[in-house]
């Protein structure tokens, strides 16, 4: 579509270190349309949005609006050009009122003094226009998640906004709340605001958007009109790359014995009525997109949260885990998602990091330095952790090697059940492969492995069985052998699909 109107991306590229997040992406957004931007995690959607918001600058390429080149050097530039952003993680000042939030950073002043009355008045008019029944004086921390999200929309519209960009705005909203948001967006569309809607939820995109652009691995795939395509077509476009060769033999238990059995586990609003079994020696992938409740499920099994309902059995024996300590004692370990926040001690050495869970589990009063050094060195050799030694702090290691420490230290306890949450998030291909090998070796030893992941190739390469979760419920199960990217993705994005 060779037009000069609307918003045009021209050969936009951006790399972060060795990672090419965007590779020459070009597409047009027609003024006044609702345009969906879709792609898997890591497809480059967020980077593109950050460029549009002025947070990140492109290495190459241009963005044009109404035929004029945009120079977006800072978030302020983007705002002044009429580009409003609604982010996935809600940027809400909980300590301010609704009006305070809307005008935060752009307060109306006269002679340096805040014009409270005027800001309140304009907030009220704006909220009325959007049919949002909240008071301008309500404290933001009293609002529900949905209203906080709508507040972000209102904030974007408080100043002249010609392009409204929404990044996964419904992640934490219920269906009714989503309906309200969509009603507001429809009204904006009718008023002529250009919408760029980023999501991996197919039904939402198909409901709102006139045209859909798909990105994959940082590259542009296609733009299609909604009425011309089916959801399946878009799914294929999102995932349609060559699969990495499957390297593991499939798990084939003649006599499956359950290592972990979860029965009717629930903790609303995160997840409800979850029942699943992981057999000894089996690798089960728990696939779900962000917000599907997979992390929360693992953390609840691990005793970080108390479930409202349901039972957990390890090796056929019911356990009541009220703390991670109890879970570890019962033979469950969790390799957490955020290794920096949840897994590593940067004030301790690599040795301490590697032996801590095992030593904590075994109890004992004294620190046995020589024995620990041997144990740590063995782990370093086994998992090929590249480090200057075991007595250096972990921040001297690369991200992939830090990740290996977090995985290896847990496996040193020889657990019966291993829960892994995004075990290869943010690591390079080589380290990813080695972590997969480690998981397979643990399964071969007889451990039941439950791997939560939103990385489709990883799920397909690793799992003997795939359980798909969406919005806190299990959508279905697939055997690892029979699954394809399309079949998994369809379960994860469609409502009511089998």
């Amino acid at each position: 579509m060779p037009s000069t109107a609307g918003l045009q991306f021209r050969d936009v590229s951006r790399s972060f270190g060795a990672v090419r997040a965007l590779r020459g992406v070009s597409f047009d957004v027609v003024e006044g349309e609702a345009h969906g931007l879709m792609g898997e995690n890591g497809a480059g959607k967020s980077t593109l949005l950050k460029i549009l918001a002025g947070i990140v600058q492109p290495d190459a390429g241009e963005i044009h609006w109404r035929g004029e080149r945009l120079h977006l050097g800072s978030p302020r530039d983007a705002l002044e050009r009429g580009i409003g952003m609604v982010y996935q993680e809600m940027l809400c000042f909980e300590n301010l009122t609704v009006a305070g939030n809307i005008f935060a950073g752009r307060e109306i002043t006269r002679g340096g003094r805040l014009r409270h009355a005027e800001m309140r008045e304009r907030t009220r008019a704006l909220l009325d226009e959007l049919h949002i029944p909240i008071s301008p004086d309500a404290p933001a921390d009293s609002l529900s998640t949905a209203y906080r999200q709508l507040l972000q929309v209102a904030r974007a519209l408080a100043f002249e906004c010609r392009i409204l960009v929404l990044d996964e705005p419904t992640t934490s909203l219920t269906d009714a709340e989503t309906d309200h948001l969509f009603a507001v967006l429809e009204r904006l569309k009718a008023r002529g605001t250009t919408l760029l809607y980023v999501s991996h939820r197919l039904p939402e995109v198909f409901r709102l958007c006139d045209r859909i652009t798909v990105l994959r691995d940082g590259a542009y795939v296609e733009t299609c009109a909604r009425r011309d395509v089916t959801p399946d077509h878009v799914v294929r476009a999102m995932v349609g790359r060559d699969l990495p060769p499957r390297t593991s033999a499939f798990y084939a238990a003649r006599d499956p014995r359950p290592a972990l059995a979860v029965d009717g586990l629930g903790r609303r609003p995160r997840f409800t009525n979850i029942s699943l079994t992981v057999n000894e020696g089996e690798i089960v992938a728990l696939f779900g997109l962000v917000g599907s409740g997979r992390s929360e499920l693992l953390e609840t099994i691990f005793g970080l949260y108390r479930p409202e309902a349901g039972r957990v059995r390890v090796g056929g024996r019911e356990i009541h885990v009220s703390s991670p300590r109890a879970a570890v004692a019962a033979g469950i370990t969790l390799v957490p998602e955020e290794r920096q926040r949840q897994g590593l001690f940067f004030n301790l050495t690599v040795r301490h990091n590697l032996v801590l869970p095992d030593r904590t589990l075994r109890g004992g009063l004294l620190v046995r330095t020589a024995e620990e050094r041997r144990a740590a060195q063995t782990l370093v050799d086994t998992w090929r952790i590249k480090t200057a030694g075991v007595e250096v702090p972990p921040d001297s290691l690369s991200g992939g090697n830090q990740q290996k420490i977090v995985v290896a230290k847990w496996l040193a306890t020889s657990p019966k059940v291993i829960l892994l949450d995004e075990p290869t998030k943010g690591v390079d291909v080589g380290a990813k492969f080695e972590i997969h090998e480690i998981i397979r070796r643990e399964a071969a030893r007889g451990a039941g492995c439950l791997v939560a992941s939103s990385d489709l190739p990883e799920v397909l390469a690793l799992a003997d069985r795939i359980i798909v979760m969406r919005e806190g419920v299990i959508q279905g199960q697939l055997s690892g052998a029979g699954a394809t990217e399309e079949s998994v993705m369809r379960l994860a994005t469609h409502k009511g699909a089998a």
Partner: protein
Amino acid sequence: MKKLWHLREFSTVVILLLEILFFTWWLWPEGSRPHPFFNAGNFLLILKYSSIYGIAAVGAAIVIISGGIDLAPGAVMALAGVVGAQLFVVGGWPLAPAMAAGVLVGFASGLLTSGLIVAIRLPPFIATLGVMGITRGLAFIITEGQYFDVSSRLVGGWRPFGLPADWVAPIILLVLAVIFQILMTAFQWGRSVFAVGGNETAALFSGIAVPWVKTSVYVISGALAAVSGIVLVLVQGQGKADLATGYELDIIASSVVGGASLAGGRGSVIGAVLGTLIFGVLRNALPQIPGATFYDRLIVGLVVIVIVVVDQLLLKKRA
């Protein structure tokens, strides 16, 4: 030597030695008069008074390493001191049980603090601020503003364990410092304290009993503050409610100067003790400098800042 340089306590020792050298030179007497600073009697005096801070600083350092803060030591010292003194002077108890009762008061206040932090989840700053008020208040209520004259009941020439009374405080400090240094470095418990201070979430995920670790550090801090309160009463010879007012800040400053990071996860017991000696020397020597009387608090404040800044620069250089 290289290993020494890498020891965190190395720079603290160097600062202490430089400080002693400086005051020895500055206060060098004219003619053949005895040196007012560099003499055995004065050093014993410095040791004796520093030990009172030092015993509490051992506990404060452990709390800081665990990622917390304890503002109550000064007030706990006073409460433990007056309880011990009252039982000894008014209640007619023998010395040892009276003082043991004082230490129990410290245990109790530590338990209260950890209850507020672990069970009610108050931030440590607020919890210990509250406990500081409660313990100081109780000290005033118990004494009704009176002094308990301990020294007149202590028989002349009191020699516990056959030692001169002046040596009691330094020896108690030495014993406690060695015990807790070993507990912190060679025992699983100590490593748990470092782990909780370094990354509480990771500690929880590692199966460490985080609530129990937190409880232990505040109970230890309370008990050690009580011990130092008892020692203060014995050294000064009287128990009164305004004892050790404001000590908590000097105690925290000593731990920090000795290498403890208020962000948690870093520091040492020995460092905290060395930190109290640095302050002890300052408090002893500054008043001997003519005309410096009104400057000593200012100088102490500057010294804290300079030492911590220099230490951070050194840390970068060593890394």
